[in-house]
């Protein structure tokens, strides 16, 4: 099981990238007593049957690891939201993309910690491939409100396979979260 909300989000972004998405959106909003997050992509999507099966921990499409019998990403998130009294929604269309949204009550005893947002956003940009990632983040109580695109980060900092670029971008992301 994942430890923090950020871990669930990174897992979803990894799914999107693996689904061949050219555009991935990630929204994280803390307001009105809840943490709400959405990951949306234009990857290969799923039909109704695949979508139902994706919620089953003992199902995987079997294309990546031939003998594997489990696929735990979405089931972990469903379980965590159910335990904490949060909510989980998923919709998908074959060939056009998938959207996953979830929420946690901010003061729930079973709500996972939010985790390291700058680290999440950095890792979410670091997967191989040519995809756009749009990060939208709001926490009005702390005066946090920003939107960042992977393309503008790549343009300013260069390829994100370089440690010194990664350190610089992490500092950039942390400065947005701290304001």
């Amino acid at each position, binding site marked *: *099981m*994942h*430890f923090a909300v*950020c*871990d669930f989000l*990174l*897992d979803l972004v*990894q799914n999107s990238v*693996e689904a061949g998405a050219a555009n991935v959106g990630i929204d994280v909003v803390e307001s009105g007593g809840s943490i709400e997050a959405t990951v949306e992509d234009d990857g290969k999507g799923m039909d109704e049957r695949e979508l139902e099966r994706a919620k089953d921990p003992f199902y995987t499409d079997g294309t*990546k*690891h031939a003998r594997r019998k489990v*696929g*735990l*990403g979405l089931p*972990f998130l469903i379980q965590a939201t159910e335990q904490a009294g949060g909510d989980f929604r998923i919709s998908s269309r074959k060939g056009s993309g998938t959207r996953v949204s979830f929420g946690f009550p901010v003061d729930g005893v079973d709500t996972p910690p939010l985790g*390291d947002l700058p*680290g*999440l956003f950095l*890792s979410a940009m*670091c*997967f*191989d491939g040519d995809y756009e990632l749009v990060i939208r983040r709001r926490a009005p109580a702390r005066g946090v409100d*920003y939107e960042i695109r992977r393309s*503008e*980060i790549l*343009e*300013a*900092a*260069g390829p994100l*396979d*370089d*440690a*010194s*670029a*990664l*350190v*610089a*971008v*992490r*500092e*950039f992301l*942390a*400065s*947005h979260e*701290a*304001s």
Partner: protein
Amino acid sequence: MAKMTLEQLRKLREEKKGDMQKRDVEGKSIQIIVGMGTCGIAAGAKQSFDEIVKAIDENKLSGDVIIRQTGCMGLCHVEPTVEVVMPGMPATIYGRVDAATARDIVVKHVVGKTLVENHIYDRPAVDIVKK
């Protein structure tokens, strides 16, 4: 801390480039790949990734090293997993890589060219790994 602008990010990046001691004129020859699937994330691969980035930056190796993330490498039972491919060393997949081991991989494997024992799960032949 005020929000950095993209212009400030660009400047910081340029400053950091100046620090680099580029050893390999042929281009980057060392690859470090961190498994970031469900299994890796659940086991703390993000912390290992952060520590590798820090250690590479501190040792001024970023001119030589490419750091990448990938999905599951198929070794879910020993996550987090990290693969290192570099000249002069056998391509190696390390498992159970917590932050301390991640730093060991940079210091011992990448810099010192010795294998990090007790964490090897794939690639080098068994007879060269001490029990």
